């Protein structure tokens, strides 16, 4: 065993490193990503254009659409190297990671040709509009209605949890076109211009105070039939393509880990000695180290598989299943170590600039967004272990005969 690149991988890594060194500043502490405001989006567009110019955008995409025609391992190597630099990358993750691959799979070549290039060069940003207030874990239970009217479809309803909707140019939209058939069979996928009349975007405020998501309201929005992806009623199949790409993007969540806790434990006191000497603290430090390293090495095993030409599957669900609740537990435990002062969340006052207090408030979202703990365990049980699906009462009944939530 070793952690070395193959000769091809090493050559590609060197090429990437040279590009980055010439074009970006190395990270100097922090995540390098500030709040997603207009200027951030502008910087992200500029960086995406630079990447594309250098041939590092769409690394795995076909050359005919402007991609590099490279391997998934090259994609990973690029991401590993880029993570060392202070560049604004997240703005394009959903569009390039999920929406455009779906477009390339289902749109006629001339349509793809129109949209792929601008997306690749950061000129147009895409978002994904699937979830609804009544359709979260159960995406296929969505109600947004699209009705045919001559050459257009008329769309009414509400989407939610739409990352980046407020700065996106285009959106991938899953709608219900036939409520009279079972739920999975009455869906149709479209893409649309987010500036279409009747589209209204509102930010959602989270308990952490930030707004990573939006609600998007549709009132008589007209979408040309030419912007349909896949046949009417085939939207679920199209959506599975998108969601498959989402799963590949799931990683462990950022947040304080055993290292931060060890640092804290050295400065806190328990019974007159450093908390790091306390058995209960040491037990947790050890267990969280083992979990974190376990995830890190699991990723290396998956990369090894990728490097050998295999594709990782639903096993990747364990990242979020483990790390989401771990962050919440670490935050809770760290606050307990500070005792009453643990309630103070002012970064000027709280130990370690309040990383633990912040984590207390954002970690609950980590256990829900992008798949709840419960959905992830279902995925592992069904798709990895091969256990049966839950009993479904909604498979065969017409959608409009199901009770509403």
């Amino acid at each position, binding site marked *: 065993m070793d952690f070395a690149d193959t000769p091809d991988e090493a050559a590609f890594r060197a090429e990437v490193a040279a590009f980055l060194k010439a074009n970006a500043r190395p990270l100097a502490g922090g995540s390098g990503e500030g709040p997603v405001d207009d200027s951030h989006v502008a910087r992200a567009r500029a960086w995406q254009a630079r990447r594309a110019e250098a041939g590092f955008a769409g690394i795995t995409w076909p050359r005919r659409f402007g991609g590099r025609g490279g391997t998934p391992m090259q994609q990973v190597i690029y991401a590993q190297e880029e993570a060392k630099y202070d560049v604004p990358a997240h703005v394009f993750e959903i569009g390039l990671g999920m929406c455009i691959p779906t477009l390339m799979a289902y749109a006629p070549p001339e349509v793809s040709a129109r949209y792929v290039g601008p997306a690749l060069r950061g000129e147009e940003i895409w978002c994904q509009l699937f*979830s609804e*207030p*009544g*359709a*979260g*874990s*159960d995406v296929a*239970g969505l109600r947004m209605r699209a009705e045919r009217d001559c050459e257009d479809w008329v769309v009414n309803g509400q989407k*939610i*949890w739409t990352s980046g909707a407020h700065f996106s140019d285009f959106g991938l939209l899953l709608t219900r076109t036939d409520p009279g058939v079972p*739920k999975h069979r009455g869906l149709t996928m479209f893409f649309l211009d987010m500036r279409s009349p009747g589209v209204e975007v509102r930010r*959602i*405020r*989270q*308990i*952490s*105070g930030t707004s990573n998501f939006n609600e998007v309201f549709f009132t008589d929005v007209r979408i040309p039939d030419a912007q349909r992806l896949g046949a009417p009623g085939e939207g679920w199949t199209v959506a599975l393509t998108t969601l498959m790409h989402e799963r590949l993007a799931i990683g462990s969540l950022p947040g304080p880990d055993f290292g931060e806790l060890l640092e804290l434990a050295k400065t*806190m*006191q*328990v*019974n*007159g000695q450093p908390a790091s000497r306390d058995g*209960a603290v040491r037990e947790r430090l050890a267990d969280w180290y083992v979990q974190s390293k376990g995830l890190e090495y699991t990723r290396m095993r998956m990369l090894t598989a990728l490097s050998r030409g295999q594709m990782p599957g639903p096993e990747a669900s364990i990242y979020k299943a483990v790390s989401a609740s771990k962050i*919440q537990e670490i935050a*809770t435990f760290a*606050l*307990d*170590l*500070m*005792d*009453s*002062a*643990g*309630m*103070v*969340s*002012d970064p000027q*006052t709280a*130990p370690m600039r309040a990383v633990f207090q912040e984590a*207390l*408030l954002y970690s*609950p*979202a980590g*256990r*829900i*967004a992008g798949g*709840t*703990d*419960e959905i992830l*365990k*279902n995925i592992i049980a069904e798709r990895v272990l091969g256990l049966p699906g*839950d009993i*479904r*009462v*909604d498979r065969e*009944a017409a959608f409009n005969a*199901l*009770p*509403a*939530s």
Partner: protein
Amino acid sequence: MNFEFSEELGAVRAQAQSFLRTHASGSARRSLEQRTGFDAALWEQVGRLGWLGAAIPEAFGGIGLGEEGLCVIAEEVGRSLAALPFASSAYLAAQAVLLFGDAGQKARLLPDLARGSAIGCFALAEGPGAPSPEAVRAVLAGGALTGRKAPVVDGGIATLAVVAVRDHDEVGLCVADLSTVGVSRDGLDTIDPSRNVAALSFDRCPAEWLPGARGWPAVMRLLDRAAVLFAFEQLGGAQASLDMARDYALQRRAFGRQIGSFQAIKHKLADVYIAIELARSNAYYGAYALQSAAGDMTEAASAARVAATHAFELASQENLQTHGGMGFTWESDCHLFYRRAKHLSLVLGAAPFWRDRLVGALEFRNAA
């Protein structure tokens, strides 16, 4: 066997519950969004109802319901999430004066605390770390108090403070009027902005000892007693969180069924129920020990506190989780319970402190 509150206190509970349902609804959210940390109008009403004097004898302006009466009200305050300095004033400041004050102090301070025209707070911590005599560095010497206490819950809105201080090697409690010169207050941002928290600085501020509270054991006696009352407040919050989760699980549908029909949700909420029942039973024993001056007050208080902290943290976390995406939005009330659960778990010694205290008491008893 009579291990249940009396019928009289059952009536007190029903009245408190119904009053708070009407008048405290939205109290925490208003306090959170307007950053007042405090619902002044509700406080005035609560004072008029006599709740603040529940455990204060009638001779000092209370209504003499006893400690069990205060437990029952504490549970309802917890359930309602009311943004009140109730715990600071009634479980800590008033109890300290009652337990440790001399006749003059009781006569002077308790009536105002009982009717709510005075608001008390309890200033123990001086930065991070569990309660300990070594951590008390504020000094009271010659009637002048100097030091900095933080965080002090309700420190920004209180009119008087019971303060842990030292005079050379001796640690104890004193009482200080917060309107005098030499007191400065700085508001602190916390994980639960529906509650007021401040740093209090005393610069040669006039203060007087509570004569009965000289020595660390007296401070711990106050903490033990308050821990039971906090446990009831936490219990109320835990039960409200579970009720909210259950109602949502019955109402919300996914995959064509109520989400409460999935075992993942059912067993999660069963675990929460179990944690709450264990906490309730330990809190009841705490109330019994409090009222009856049982010999095992430390074990009773520690167990009640540990169980209630676990129950409210778990119940509020899993209530949020049960609500899915809506759970982590600002508009949902889930985060009000989640914040309050952690606030209450930190306010009087966190769980590790109480676990250690519990085992210490068991070792002592076992060795004796």
